[in-house]
Protein backbone atom coordinates (compact mmCIF):
# COMPACT_ATOMS: atom_id res chain seq x y z
CA UNK A 1 0.00 0.00 0.00
CA UNK A 2 1.19 3.47 -0.82
CA UNK A 3 2.26 5.63 2.09
CA UNK A 4 3.00 8.74 0.09
CA UNK A 5 1.49 9.53 -3.25
CA UNK A 6 1.95 12.41 -5.64
CA UNK A 7 -0.53 12.48 -8.53
CA UNK A 8 -0.24 14.59 -11.67
CA UNK A 9 1.51 17.46 -9.90
CA UNK A 10 1.73 20.57 -12.04
CA UNK A 11 3.34 23.98 -11.61
CA UNK A 12 3.74 26.71 -14.20
CA UNK A 13 5.87 29.82 -13.95
CA UNK A 14 4.73 32.42 -16.46
CA UNK A 15 3.38 29.85 -18.88
CA UNK A 16 6.41 27.56 -18.58
CA UNK A 17 5.56 24.14 -17.11
CA UNK A 18 8.28 23.60 -14.51
CA UNK A 19 6.55 20.58 -13.06
CA UNK A 20 4.47 18.75 -15.62
CA UNK A 21 2.18 15.94 -14.50
CA UNK A 22 4.67 14.37 -12.12
CA UNK A 23 3.41 11.35 -10.24
CA UNK A 24 5.16 9.06 -7.81
CA UNK A 25 4.32 6.83 -4.93
CA UNK A 26 6.32 5.56 -1.99
CA UNK A 27 5.68 2.59 0.26
CA UNK A 28 7.24 2.15 3.71
CA UNK A 29 10.90 1.19 3.29
CA UNK A 30 11.21 2.55 -0.25
CA UNK A 31 14.48 4.15 -1.31
CA UNK A 32 13.76 6.27 -4.34
CA UNK A 33 16.25 8.61 -5.98
CA UNK A 34 15.08 11.54 -8.06
CA UNK A 35 17.73 12.72 -10.49
CA UNK A 36 17.85 15.10 -13.40
CA UNK A 37 20.03 17.69 -15.07
CA UNK A 38 20.20 21.26 -13.80
CA UNK A 39 16.94 23.05 -14.47
CA UNK A 40 14.98 19.80 -14.62
CA UNK A 41 12.58 21.04 -11.94
CA UNK A 42 13.86 19.06 -8.94
CA UNK A 43 13.93 22.03 -6.55
CA UNK A 44 10.45 23.12 -7.62
CA UNK A 45 9.23 19.57 -7.07
CA UNK A 46 10.75 19.54 -3.55
CA UNK A 47 9.13 22.88 -2.77
CA UNK A 48 5.76 21.66 -4.01
CA UNK A 49 5.96 18.46 -1.99
CA UNK A 50 7.08 20.21 1.21
CA UNK A 51 4.40 22.89 0.88
CA UNK A 52 6.62 25.88 0.17
CA UNK A 53 5.01 26.30 -3.25
CA UNK A 54 1.35 25.90 -4.17
CA UNK A 55 0.75 23.55 -7.10
CA UNK A 56 -1.43 24.53 -10.05
CA UNK A 57 -2.85 21.04 -10.21
CA UNK A 58 -2.54 17.52 -8.88
CA UNK A 59 -2.63 16.10 -5.39
CA UNK A 60 -0.32 14.93 -2.61
CA UNK A 61 -1.42 12.24 -0.17
CA UNK A 62 0.35 11.16 3.01
CA UNK A 63 -0.85 8.09 4.90
CA UNK A 64 -4.24 8.29 3.20
CA UNK A 65 -4.73 12.00 3.92
CA UNK A 66 -4.82 14.61 1.19
CA UNK A 67 -2.18 17.16 2.26
CA UNK A 68 -2.17 19.25 -0.94
CA UNK A 69 -3.57 22.28 0.89
CA UNK A 70 -1.80 21.64 4.19
CA UNK A 71 0.83 24.17 5.35
CA UNK A 72 4.52 23.22 5.23
CA UNK A 73 4.88 23.18 9.02
CA UNK A 74 1.85 20.92 9.43
CA UNK A 75 3.19 18.52 6.81
CA UNK A 76 6.26 18.09 9.00
CA UNK A 77 4.04 17.42 12.00
CA UNK A 78 2.25 14.74 9.96
CA UNK A 79 5.55 13.01 9.20
CA UNK A 80 6.90 14.52 5.98
CA UNK A 81 10.40 15.74 6.84
CA UNK A 82 13.11 17.18 4.64
CA UNK A 83 16.83 17.80 4.84
CA UNK A 84 18.51 20.70 3.03
CA UNK A 85 20.91 20.81 0.10
CA UNK A 86 23.01 23.39 1.97
CA UNK A 87 23.03 22.68 5.70
CA UNK A 88 20.61 24.77 7.69
CA UNK A 89 21.69 24.49 11.28
CA UNK A 90 21.92 26.79 14.29
CA UNK A 91 25.54 27.99 14.23
CA UNK A 92 25.71 28.89 17.92
CA UNK A 93 24.01 25.76 19.22
CA UNK A 94 25.53 22.36 19.90
CA UNK A 95 24.66 19.09 18.15
CA UNK A 96 23.17 17.96 21.46
CA UNK A 97 20.85 20.97 21.52
CA UNK A 98 19.88 20.44 17.89
CA UNK A 99 18.84 16.84 18.36
CA UNK A 100 17.18 17.58 21.71
CA UNK A 101 15.14 20.34 20.09
CA UNK A 102 14.02 18.00 17.32
CA UNK A 103 12.98 15.37 19.88
CA UNK A 104 11.14 17.93 22.04
CA UNK A 105 9.38 19.30 18.96
CA UNK A 106 8.38 15.80 17.87
CA UNK A 107 6.97 15.08 21.33
CA UNK A 108 5.11 18.41 21.51
CA UNK A 109 7.30 19.69 24.35
CA UNK A 110 9.33 22.34 22.55
CA UNK A 111 7.20 25.24 23.86
CA UNK A 112 7.64 24.28 27.52
CA UNK A 113 8.78 27.31 29.43
CA UNK A 114 10.39 25.54 32.34
CA UNK A 115 12.78 22.64 32.83
CA UNK A 116 15.96 22.05 30.90
CA UNK A 117 16.40 19.60 28.06
CA UNK A 118 19.65 18.32 29.55
CA UNK A 119 17.84 17.45 32.77
CA UNK A 120 15.20 15.38 30.93
CA UNK A 121 16.54 11.86 31.16
CA UNK A 122 14.62 10.38 28.23
CA UNK A 123 15.61 13.22 25.93
CA UNK A 124 19.26 13.02 26.98
CA UNK A 125 19.32 9.25 26.40
CA UNK A 126 17.74 9.50 22.97
CA UNK A 127 20.06 12.35 21.97
CA UNK A 128 23.01 10.22 23.13
CA UNK A 129 21.80 7.22 21.11
CA UNK A 130 21.32 9.19 17.90
CA UNK A 131 24.62 11.06 18.13
CA UNK A 132 26.40 7.84 19.02
CA UNK A 133 24.87 6.05 16.05
CA UNK A 134 26.17 8.72 13.70
CA UNK A 135 29.56 9.00 15.40
CA UNK A 136 28.95 12.54 16.62
CA UNK A 137 29.14 11.89 20.38
CA UNK A 138 32.54 13.51 20.75
CA UNK A 139 31.19 16.72 19.22
CA UNK A 140 27.97 16.82 21.27
CA UNK A 141 28.92 19.95 23.20
CA UNK A 142 30.76 21.90 20.51
CA UNK A 143 29.02 24.70 18.70
CA UNK A 144 27.99 23.77 15.19
CA UNK A 145 30.14 26.50 13.67
CA UNK A 146 33.16 24.76 15.21
CA UNK A 147 32.55 21.40 13.53
CA UNK A 148 33.47 20.31 10.01
CA UNK A 149 30.99 20.55 7.14
CA UNK A 150 30.83 16.78 6.69
CA UNK A 151 29.88 16.43 10.35
CA UNK A 152 27.24 19.10 9.91
CA UNK A 153 25.76 17.02 7.10
CA UNK A 154 25.63 14.06 9.47
CA UNK A 155 23.86 16.27 11.99
CA UNK A 156 21.24 17.08 9.35
CA UNK A 157 20.59 13.34 9.08
CA UNK A 158 20.53 13.08 12.89
CA UNK A 159 17.81 15.74 13.01
CA UNK A 160 15.78 13.88 10.42
CA UNK A 161 16.12 10.69 12.48
CA UNK A 162 15.11 12.47 15.70
CA UNK A 163 11.88 13.72 14.11
CA UNK A 164 10.93 10.09 13.30
CA UNK A 165 9.28 10.89 9.98
CA UNK A 166 7.16 8.59 7.86
CA UNK A 167 8.60 10.04 4.67
CA UNK A 168 12.03 11.64 4.43
CA UNK A 169 13.07 13.92 1.61
CA UNK A 170 16.86 14.07 1.38
CA UNK A 171 17.99 16.99 -0.74
CA UNK A 172 21.52 16.13 -1.89
CA UNK A 173 22.71 14.78 1.47
CA UNK A 174 26.33 14.56 0.29
CA UNK A 175 26.51 17.98 -1.40
CA UNK A 176 29.67 19.86 -0.48
CA UNK A 177 31.20 16.90 1.32
CA UNK A 178 34.72 15.91 0.23
CA UNK A 179 34.77 12.63 -1.73
CA UNK A 180 36.77 10.94 1.03
CA UNK A 181 33.99 11.59 3.53
CA UNK A 182 30.96 10.55 1.49
CA UNK A 183 31.39 7.02 2.85
CA UNK A 184 30.39 8.33 6.29
CA UNK A 185 27.26 9.90 4.83
CA UNK A 186 26.47 6.60 3.10
CA UNK A 187 26.91 4.70 6.35
CA UNK A 188 24.59 7.18 8.07
CA UNK A 189 21.98 6.73 5.36
CA UNK A 190 22.20 2.96 5.83
CA UNK A 191 21.23 3.50 9.46
CA UNK A 192 17.91 5.14 8.62
CA UNK A 193 14.99 3.06 9.90
CA UNK A 194 14.16 0.28 7.41
CA UNK A 195 10.44 1.13 7.34
CA UNK A 196 11.08 4.79 6.52
CA UNK A 197 10.19 5.85 2.98
CA UNK A 198 13.03 7.93 1.53
CA UNK A 199 13.04 10.15 -1.52
CA UNK A 200 16.55 11.33 -2.31
CA UNK A 201 17.46 14.11 -4.69
CA UNK A 202 21.11 13.64 -5.58
CA UNK A 203 23.72 14.50 -8.19
CA UNK A 204 26.36 12.05 -7.01
CA UNK A 205 25.53 9.05 -9.19
CA UNK A 206 27.73 6.65 -7.20
CA UNK A 207 25.66 7.44 -4.13
CA UNK A 208 22.42 7.08 -6.07
CA UNK A 209 23.38 3.66 -7.41
CA UNK A 210 24.42 2.41 -3.99
CA UNK A 211 21.48 3.84 -2.03
CA UNK A 212 18.43 3.73 -4.27
CA UNK A 213 16.32 0.73 -5.10
CA UNK A 214 14.45 2.78 -7.67
CA UNK A 215 15.38 5.80 -9.75
CA UNK A 216 13.21 8.45 -11.35
CA UNK A 217 14.63 10.88 -13.87
CA UNK A 218 13.16 14.32 -14.29
CA UNK A 219 13.86 16.41 -17.39
CA UNK A 220 12.16 19.68 -18.26
CA UNK A 221 9.62 19.08 -15.49
CA UNK A 222 8.56 15.67 -16.82
CA UNK A 223 9.36 12.18 -15.60
CA UNK A 224 11.27 10.49 -18.41
CA UNK A 225 12.33 7.36 -16.56
CA UNK A 226 11.06 5.33 -13.61
CA UNK A 227 12.82 2.07 -12.96
CA UNK A 228 15.76 0.27 -11.42
CA UNK A 229 19.21 1.85 -11.01
CA UNK A 230 20.59 -0.90 -13.27
CA UNK A 231 18.33 0.10 -16.15
CA UNK A 232 18.69 3.86 -15.88
CA UNK A 233 22.10 3.98 -17.55
CA UNK A 234 20.79 1.94 -20.48
CA UNK A 235 17.82 4.17 -21.17
CA UNK A 236 18.28 6.16 -24.36
CA UNK A 237 16.13 9.14 -23.29
CA UNK A 238 18.01 9.42 -20.00
CA UNK A 239 21.38 9.23 -21.74
CA UNK A 240 20.35 12.05 -24.01
CA UNK A 241 18.90 14.19 -21.25
CA UNK A 242 21.30 13.67 -18.44
CA UNK A 243 23.82 10.95 -17.95
CA UNK A 244 25.97 11.33 -21.05
CA UNK A 245 29.49 10.23 -20.53
CA UNK A 246 28.75 8.69 -17.13
CA UNK A 247 26.37 6.16 -18.74
CA UNK A 248 28.96 5.33 -21.36
CA UNK A 249 31.53 4.80 -18.71
CA UNK A 250 29.08 2.64 -16.78
CA UNK A 251 28.21 0.43 -19.73
CA UNK A 252 31.83 0.07 -20.69
CA UNK A 253 32.60 -1.15 -17.19
Amino acid at each position, binding site marked *: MSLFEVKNLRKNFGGLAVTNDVSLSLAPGDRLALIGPNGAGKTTFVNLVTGHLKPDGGSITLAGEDITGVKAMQRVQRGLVRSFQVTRLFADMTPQEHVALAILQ*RDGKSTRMFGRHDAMRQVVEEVGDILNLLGLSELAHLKVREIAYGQQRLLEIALAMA*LRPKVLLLDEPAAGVPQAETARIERALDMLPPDLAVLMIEHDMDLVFRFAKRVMVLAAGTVIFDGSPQDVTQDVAVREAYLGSYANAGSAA
Partner: protein
Amino acid sequence: MTVLMNSTLPTRRRSLGTLIGIAVIIAASVIGYFLFPNNLALLTRIVATMLLVLSIDLVTGYCGVATLGHAALFGAGAYGAGIVSAHFGITEPLTMTLIGAVAGALAGLVSGLVILRAHGLPQLVLSIAVVHLFHEVANKASSWTGGSDGLSGITTDALLGLFEFDLWGRTAYVYGIVLLLIVFVLLRILVQSPFGMLARGVREDPVRVAAMGASVHSVMLRMYVISGAVAGIGGALNAISTQVVGLDSLSFTLSAEALVMLVLGGTGSLYGAMVGTVSFMWFEDVVSAANPFHWLTIVGALLIVVVLFAPKGLYGSAAAFLSRRRGGGK
Protein backbone atom coordinates in the same frame (compact mmCIF):
# COMPACT_ATOMS: atom_id res chain seq x y z
CA MET B 1 26.65 7.43 26.90
CA THR B 2 29.37 10.06 26.70
CA VAL B 3 26.69 12.62 26.02
CA LEU B 4 24.64 11.37 28.97
CA MET B 5 27.54 11.73 31.37
CA ASN B 6 28.68 15.08 30.02
CA SER B 7 25.19 16.56 29.97
CA THR B 8 25.20 17.28 33.69
CA LEU B 9 28.16 19.61 33.27
CA PRO B 10 26.40 22.43 31.37
CA THR B 11 23.37 22.01 33.67
CA ARG B 12 25.49 22.59 36.77
CA ARG B 13 27.34 25.45 35.10
CA ARG B 14 24.06 27.16 34.24
CA SER B 15 22.62 26.71 37.77
CA LEU B 16 25.82 28.20 39.10
CA GLY B 17 25.47 31.04 36.59
CA THR B 18 22.00 31.88 37.93
CA LEU B 19 23.24 31.86 41.53
CA ILE B 20 26.21 34.06 40.62
CA GLY B 21 23.82 36.42 38.81
CA ILE B 22 21.58 36.70 41.88
CA ALA B 23 24.61 37.29 44.11
CA VAL B 24 26.01 39.97 41.77
CA ILE B 25 22.66 41.79 41.55
CA ILE B 26 22.29 41.78 45.34
CA ALA B 27 25.91 42.86 45.90
CA ALA B 28 25.70 45.66 43.31
CA SER B 29 22.39 46.83 44.81
CA VAL B 30 23.81 46.96 48.33
CA ILE B 31 26.92 48.81 47.13
CA GLY B 32 24.71 51.25 45.18
CA TYR B 33 22.50 51.80 48.21
CA PHE B 34 25.41 52.76 50.46
CA LEU B 35 27.52 54.51 47.85
CA PHE B 36 24.74 56.75 46.49
CA PRO B 37 22.22 57.18 49.32
CA ASN B 38 21.07 60.50 47.88
CA ASN B 39 20.71 59.18 44.36
CA LEU B 40 18.37 56.23 44.90
CA ALA B 41 15.83 57.70 42.46
CA LEU B 42 18.40 57.42 39.66
CA LEU B 43 19.26 53.87 40.70
CA THR B 44 15.55 52.93 40.67
CA ARG B 45 15.23 54.47 37.21
CA ILE B 46 18.20 52.35 36.11
CA VAL B 47 16.44 49.23 37.44
CA ALA B 48 13.20 50.13 35.61
CA THR B 49 15.14 50.76 32.39
CA MET B 50 17.00 47.48 32.94
CA LEU B 51 13.65 45.68 32.85
CA LEU B 52 12.89 47.42 29.54
CA VAL B 53 16.28 46.44 28.10
CA LEU B 54 15.85 42.84 29.32
CA SER B 55 12.49 42.77 27.57
CA ILE B 56 14.05 43.99 24.29
CA ASP B 57 16.71 41.32 24.67
CA LEU B 58 13.99 38.66 24.75
CA VAL B 59 12.72 39.58 21.29
CA THR B 60 15.88 40.97 19.71
CA GLY B 61 18.64 38.97 21.38
CA TYR B 62 16.81 35.66 21.66
CA CYS B 63 14.39 35.75 18.70
CA GLY B 64 16.20 38.07 16.28
CA VAL B 65 13.30 40.53 15.92
CA ALA B 66 14.47 44.05 15.08
CA THR B 67 12.56 46.70 17.05
CA LEU B 68 12.84 50.41 17.68
CA GLY B 69 9.44 50.66 19.32
CA HIS B 70 9.74 48.72 22.51
CA ALA B 71 9.04 51.69 24.77
CA ALA B 72 5.39 51.26 23.71
CA LEU B 73 5.30 48.20 26.00
CA PHE B 74 7.11 50.00 28.82
CA GLY B 75 4.79 53.01 28.52
CA ALA B 76 1.71 50.78 28.45
CA GLY B 77 2.82 49.29 31.78
CA ALA B 78 3.52 52.74 33.24
CA TYR B 79 0.18 54.18 32.11
CA GLY B 80 -1.67 51.00 33.14
CA ALA B 81 -0.33 51.17 36.68
CA GLY B 82 -0.70 54.97 36.80
CA ILE B 83 -4.26 55.13 35.47
CA VAL B 84 -5.64 52.51 37.87
CA SER B 85 -4.14 54.48 40.74
CA ALA B 86 -5.06 58.01 39.60
CA HIS B 87 -8.53 57.21 38.21
CA PHE B 88 -9.71 54.04 39.94
CA GLY B 89 -8.13 54.33 43.35
CA ILE B 90 -6.20 51.06 43.07
CA THR B 91 -3.13 52.10 45.01
CA GLU B 92 -1.81 48.80 46.28
CA PRO B 93 1.70 48.60 44.69
CA LEU B 94 1.72 44.85 44.00
CA THR B 95 -1.64 45.11 42.23
CA MET B 96 -0.43 48.15 40.31
CA THR B 97 2.67 46.20 39.22
CA LEU B 98 0.52 43.26 38.14
CA ILE B 99 -1.74 45.57 36.14
CA GLY B 100 1.38 47.13 34.59
CA ALA B 101 2.56 43.65 33.57
CA VAL B 102 -0.82 42.80 32.02
CA ALA B 103 -0.98 46.14 30.19
CA GLY B 104 2.55 45.56 28.90
CA ALA B 105 1.68 42.02 27.80
CA LEU B 106 -1.40 43.28 25.95
CA ALA B 107 0.67 46.01 24.29
CA GLY B 108 3.19 43.27 23.42
CA LEU B 109 0.44 41.20 21.82
CA VAL B 110 -0.84 44.14 19.75
CA SER B 111 2.68 45.27 18.75
CA GLY B 112 3.72 41.71 17.99
CA LEU B 113 0.70 41.08 15.76
CA VAL B 114 1.65 44.15 13.70
CA ILE B 115 5.46 44.00 13.76
CA LEU B 116 5.85 40.28 13.17
CA ARG B 117 4.04 40.50 9.85
CA ALA B 118 7.24 41.87 8.31
CA HIS B 119 10.96 41.08 8.36
CA GLY B 120 14.15 43.12 8.40
CA LEU B 121 13.86 46.81 7.55
CA PRO B 122 10.07 46.87 7.08
CA GLN B 123 9.83 45.26 10.53
CA LEU B 124 11.96 48.02 12.00
CA VAL B 125 9.79 50.67 10.32
CA LEU B 126 6.62 49.02 11.64
CA SER B 127 8.04 49.03 15.17
CA ILE B 128 8.72 52.79 14.89
CA ALA B 129 5.19 53.32 13.58
CA VAL B 130 3.78 51.35 16.52
CA VAL B 131 5.57 53.41 19.18
CA HIS B 132 4.50 56.65 17.48
CA LEU B 133 0.89 55.43 17.42
CA PHE B 134 1.00 54.52 21.11
CA HIS B 135 2.55 57.91 21.84
CA GLU B 136 -0.15 59.72 19.88
CA VAL B 137 -2.99 57.75 21.48
CA ALA B 138 -1.62 58.63 24.94
CA ASN B 139 -1.27 62.26 23.88
CA LYS B 140 -4.85 62.50 22.58
CA ALA B 141 -6.48 60.60 25.45
CA SER B 142 -5.47 63.39 27.81
CA SER B 143 -8.48 62.97 30.10
CA TRP B 144 -7.02 59.57 31.02
CA THR B 145 -3.31 60.13 30.55
CA GLY B 146 -2.82 63.82 31.25
CA GLY B 147 -1.55 64.22 27.68
CA SER B 148 1.62 66.25 27.31
CA ASP B 149 1.40 67.41 30.94
CA GLY B 150 1.87 63.84 32.09
CA LEU B 151 -0.28 61.68 34.33
CA SER B 152 -0.17 62.96 37.88
CA GLY B 153 -2.18 62.12 40.97
CA ILE B 154 -0.66 58.65 41.28
CA THR B 155 -0.60 57.53 44.89
CA THR B 156 0.62 54.28 46.33
CA ASP B 157 -0.10 52.47 49.57
CA ALA B 158 2.65 51.16 51.78
CA LEU B 159 4.27 48.07 50.30
CA LEU B 160 2.71 44.99 51.98
CA GLY B 161 1.06 47.49 54.34
CA LEU B 162 4.43 47.95 56.05
CA PHE B 163 6.84 50.02 53.96
CA GLU B 164 5.79 53.52 52.91
CA PHE B 165 7.22 54.85 49.63
CA ASP B 166 9.42 57.50 51.23
CA LEU B 167 10.80 60.73 49.80
CA TRP B 168 14.35 59.33 49.63
CA GLY B 169 13.14 56.49 47.43
CA ARG B 170 14.47 53.70 49.66
CA THR B 171 11.34 51.55 49.49
CA ALA B 172 11.00 52.09 45.74
CA TYR B 173 14.66 51.10 45.26
CA VAL B 174 14.39 47.93 47.33
CA TYR B 175 11.09 47.07 45.63
CA GLY B 176 12.75 47.58 42.24
CA ILE B 177 15.64 45.29 43.16
CA VAL B 178 13.25 42.58 44.36
CA LEU B 179 11.26 42.86 41.12
CA LEU B 180 14.49 42.67 39.12
CA LEU B 181 15.60 39.56 41.01
CA ILE B 182 12.24 37.84 40.46
CA VAL B 183 12.22 38.75 36.75
CA PHE B 184 15.87 37.68 36.37
CA VAL B 185 15.25 34.23 37.89
CA LEU B 186 12.07 33.70 35.84
CA LEU B 187 13.84 34.77 32.64
CA ARG B 188 16.80 32.48 33.38
CA ILE B 189 14.32 29.60 33.66
CA LEU B 190 12.64 30.74 30.44
CA VAL B 191 15.76 31.14 28.31
CA GLN B 192 17.12 27.77 29.46
CA SER B 193 13.81 25.98 28.86
CA PRO B 194 12.93 24.14 25.64
CA PHE B 195 11.03 27.28 24.60
CA GLY B 196 14.15 29.40 25.12
CA MET B 197 16.12 26.95 23.00
CA LEU B 198 13.43 27.09 20.31
CA ALA B 199 13.58 30.91 20.37
CA ARG B 200 17.35 30.80 19.87
CA GLY B 201 16.70 28.48 16.96
CA VAL B 202 14.29 31.04 15.48
CA ARG B 203 16.98 33.70 15.77
CA GLU B 204 19.60 31.53 14.07
CA ASP B 205 17.54 29.99 11.28
CA PRO B 206 13.75 30.26 11.14
CA VAL B 207 13.65 28.05 8.05
CA ARG B 208 15.24 25.18 9.98
CA VAL B 209 12.83 25.67 12.89
CA ALA B 210 9.88 25.49 10.48
CA ALA B 211 11.42 22.37 8.91
CA MET B 212 11.23 20.78 12.37
CA GLY B 213 7.50 21.42 12.36
CA ALA B 214 7.46 24.38 14.78
CA SER B 215 5.60 27.63 14.18
CA VAL B 216 8.13 30.46 13.99
CA HIS B 217 5.43 33.12 14.22
CA SER B 218 3.89 31.57 17.32
CA VAL B 219 7.28 31.43 19.08
CA MET B 220 7.99 35.09 18.32
CA LEU B 221 4.49 36.24 19.32
CA ARG B 222 4.64 34.39 22.64
CA MET B 223 8.02 35.93 23.31
CA TYR B 224 6.63 39.35 22.43
CA VAL B 225 3.85 38.95 25.00
CA ILE B 226 6.30 37.78 27.70
CA SER B 227 8.60 40.63 26.79
CA GLY B 228 5.64 43.01 27.09
CA ALA B 229 4.94 41.77 30.61
CA VAL B 230 8.59 42.37 31.61
CA ALA B 231 8.64 45.86 30.07
CA GLY B 232 5.27 46.54 31.70
CA ILE B 233 6.69 45.69 35.13
CA GLY B 234 9.50 48.16 34.43
CA GLY B 235 6.96 50.81 33.44
CA ALA B 236 4.86 50.15 36.55
CA LEU B 237 7.97 50.43 38.73
CA ASN B 238 8.71 53.77 37.11
CA ALA B 239 5.14 54.98 37.75
CA ILE B 240 5.20 53.79 41.36
CA SER B 241 8.61 55.28 42.15
CA THR B 242 8.15 58.67 40.44
CA GLN B 243 4.36 58.93 40.90
CA VAL B 244 4.09 60.51 37.47
CA VAL B 245 3.96 59.10 33.94
CA GLY B 246 5.07 61.26 31.03
CA LEU B 247 4.75 60.76 27.29
CA ASP B 248 8.49 60.18 27.17
CA SER B 249 7.88 56.74 28.72
CA LEU B 250 6.51 55.54 25.35
CA SER B 251 8.72 57.56 23.08
CA PHE B 252 10.84 56.59 20.13
CA THR B 253 13.85 58.12 21.92
CA LEU B 254 13.49 55.76 24.88
CA SER B 255 13.05 52.81 22.50
CA ALA B 256 16.22 53.72 20.61
CA GLU B 257 18.23 54.41 23.77
CA ALA B 258 17.18 51.10 25.28
CA LEU B 259 18.24 49.27 22.12
CA VAL B 260 21.59 51.07 22.26
CA MET B 261 21.99 49.94 25.88
CA LEU B 262 21.35 46.35 24.81
CA VAL B 263 23.89 46.55 21.99
CA LEU B 264 26.37 48.16 24.38
CA GLY B 265 26.04 45.29 26.86
CA GLY B 266 25.64 42.50 24.31
CA THR B 267 22.53 40.90 22.84
CA GLY B 268 21.29 37.40 23.57
CA SER B 269 22.33 37.38 27.21
CA LEU B 270 20.44 38.61 30.26
CA TYR B 271 23.73 39.76 31.77
CA GLY B 272 24.54 41.77 28.66
CA ALA B 273 21.21 43.61 28.94
CA MET B 274 21.87 44.49 32.59
CA VAL B 275 25.53 45.45 32.09
CA GLY B 276 24.60 47.62 29.09
CA THR B 277 21.90 49.50 31.00
CA VAL B 278 24.10 50.23 34.02
CA SER B 279 27.08 51.23 31.86
CA PHE B 280 25.06 53.51 29.59
CA MET B 281 23.05 55.25 32.31
CA TRP B 282 25.97 55.60 34.68
CA PHE B 283 28.21 56.93 31.90
CA GLU B 284 25.47 59.28 30.73
CA ASP B 285 25.03 60.60 34.29
CA VAL B 286 28.75 61.11 34.88
CA VAL B 287 29.51 62.65 31.49
CA SER B 288 26.49 64.95 31.47
CA ALA B 289 27.52 66.28 34.89
CA ALA B 290 31.15 66.73 33.83
CA ASN B 291 30.44 68.34 30.47
CA PRO B 292 26.85 69.52 30.03
CA PHE B 293 27.56 70.80 26.50
CA HIS B 294 29.31 67.88 24.84
CA TRP B 295 28.16 64.87 26.79
CA LEU B 296 26.13 63.45 23.91
CA THR B 297 29.25 63.61 21.72
CA ILE B 298 31.19 61.64 24.31
CA VAL B 299 28.40 59.04 24.65
CA GLY B 300 28.35 58.74 20.85
CA ALA B 301 32.13 58.26 20.75
CA LEU B 302 31.91 55.52 23.40
CA LEU B 303 29.28 53.71 21.37
CA ILE B 304 31.38 53.88 18.21
CA VAL B 305 34.38 52.47 20.10
CA VAL B 306 32.31 49.62 21.55
CA VAL B 307 30.62 48.74 18.26
CA LEU B 308 33.91 48.81 16.34
CA PHE B 309 36.19 47.11 18.86
CA ALA B 310 33.78 44.98 20.89
CA PRO B 311 30.94 44.18 18.49
CA LYS B 312 29.49 41.62 20.89
CA GLY B 313 29.05 44.35 23.49
CA LEU B 314 30.82 44.84 26.81
CA TYR B 315 29.55 41.67 28.46
CA GLY B 316 29.46 39.63 25.25
CA SER B 317 33.08 40.44 24.40
CA ALA B 318 34.28 39.81 27.95
CA ALA B 319 32.45 36.47 28.03
CA ALA B 320 33.89 35.50 24.63
CA PHE B 321 37.40 36.47 25.78
CA LEU B 322 37.09 34.39 28.96
CA SER B 323 35.69 31.48 26.99
CA ARG B 324 38.68 31.63 24.60
CA ARG B 325 41.07 31.76 27.54
CA ARG B 326 39.37 28.76 29.10
CA GLY B 327 39.45 26.92 25.78
CA GLY B 328 43.12 27.78 25.27
CA GLY B 329 43.98 26.59 28.73
CA LYS B 330 42.71 23.10 28.08
